[in-house]
């Protein structure tokens, strides 16, 4: 059990999809973060779309997913 023998039947291809689903799940959690929380620290009048850290995080996750999809 300590060696994760119970996962030896899971192929590398299936593992790749587990990872991609994991990234998708993180993406959903990021989208659910309240907007006010991600803009905390930026004055109300200065809040622009490029200050939205959710967009930054989704961008990073998309690139990561692409890398894992390709390789």
């Amino acid at each position: 059990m300590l060696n994760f023998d119970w996962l030896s039947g899971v192929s590398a291809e299936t593992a790749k999809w587990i990872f991609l689903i994991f990234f998708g799940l993180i993406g959903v959690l990021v989208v659910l973060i309240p907007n006010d929380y991600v803009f905390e620290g930026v004055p109300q009048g200065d809040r622009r779309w490029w200050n939205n850290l959710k967009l930054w995080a989704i961008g990073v996750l998309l690139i990561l997913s692409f890398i894992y999809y390709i390789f």
Partner: protein
Amino acid sequence: MLAGIDYFIVIAYLIGILLLGYYFKRFNDSSEDYFLGGRSLPFWAIGMSIVVSDIGALDFVGISGQAYRYGISVGNFDWIGSVPAMLLAAFIFIPYFWKGGMYTIPEYLGRRYNNTVRTIASATWIIFFAVDLGVLFWASAVLLNVLMGWPIWISIMVTASVVGLYTYFGGITAVVMTDVVQMIIMFVGGFALVFLGLQAVGGWDVMAEKIVNLGPEYDRHFDLMQPSDAPTPYPWSGILFGLTFVMANAYMIGNQSIVQRCLTAKNEWHAKASMIFASSLKMLIPVLVLFPGLMAIILHPGLEDGDQALPMMIKNVLPPGLIGLMFSAFFAGLMSSVDSLLNSTATLFTKDIYQPYIKKDADDKHYLKVGKLTTLVLLLIGIATAPISSYYPGIYVAIQTFLSYFQGPIFAILLLGMFWKRTTQWGGLAGLSIGIVCSFILNTVEGIFTIEDPFLYVSWWSFVVGFVVTVTVSLMTSKHDDSRLKGLVYGA
């Protein structure tokens, strides 16, 4: 190996870094300035600093060597082994630490649990950083000696003088701002090598085709996912459970030298943004350190020691001038690691040991002096202990293993402390102590694990033990008052 132009570039780089770092002396009037940069730094500088301090000269060589032997699966450490953890840190942990005005991670543990937990965590990091300093000096100097023929003591003294001066006078602001320049140099040098290396092998597609056709042992060189029973240190199950769920989080959330940088941010948005920006840069690291290892398979097949891959590539692919730049990139990697160790250890010692136990109510200027003095003493210890490494060739690996003992248990108590109000001080103390003992047993008793170098599995199981013990003991002891948990637990 170095031409005149290369020497010029290296010397100009060293002088430039020294002057830049020294410039920031004027911004250090208090201990908050020295340890937290007056909480005034922008996200882009912090993000670049996080990335460059995370990768040293030894990693350049080591990761290329691993790519030469095992293929791109070693890239998991900078991709899935960093990005999700950095997002978790950015959105959940860093804002809490930043809003709490903390200096150190053990300080959070002390407020959430008790001073014993704080002292154990802090002392662990101090010992690790102090020993690591000497080892890092020696191992990097040996590397520079092999690569460039520079005498070992010249490398050590040059690095110590430059880094020591700007870290002593400039504090963390100098550390972060010099890291920005170090990162640019590292990326320019690294990408130049990748670009010229790809031209030399005939492009990516040609290289991939040639490698895969070399034989069955190269079949999986371009697969990030290795089967869970594959005889590599990086099976996908270890990557998911050990690396992604535990080690990466422990590193990005519990490592003082990483988190301290985010605490220097000018506001909460910059603190969060610094980590996300760093994660985007982190995804480029495998291109710099892993691709040269793959190219070397074609250009220098049959190397007995994979760690020779990068030096061979530099020697045979780069023209004069760019070799000097690459050499500067090695120095940048070394200096950014050393300055982080110095400043973080000085912070841990001053804030977690000196202030609570040695002199409690001194004025702020006193703690500023102690921080500077600690930096100097550490530097001297690092130089003095560096030659010890020559008697113990495996010491670098031994120190990394020592660190892995603590990763799982510390992450377990950080996670429960932040998300579960019912976690008690005795639960945290028991989880940390028993988890560390469990790591030690798993690492030393032979025959438990079947894969080569099972550090990923050790991290996972010590985390599980730390987690279960913390929950069990917490449920058996009386819970903390809500007033004590305010600002320390999510939602409290």
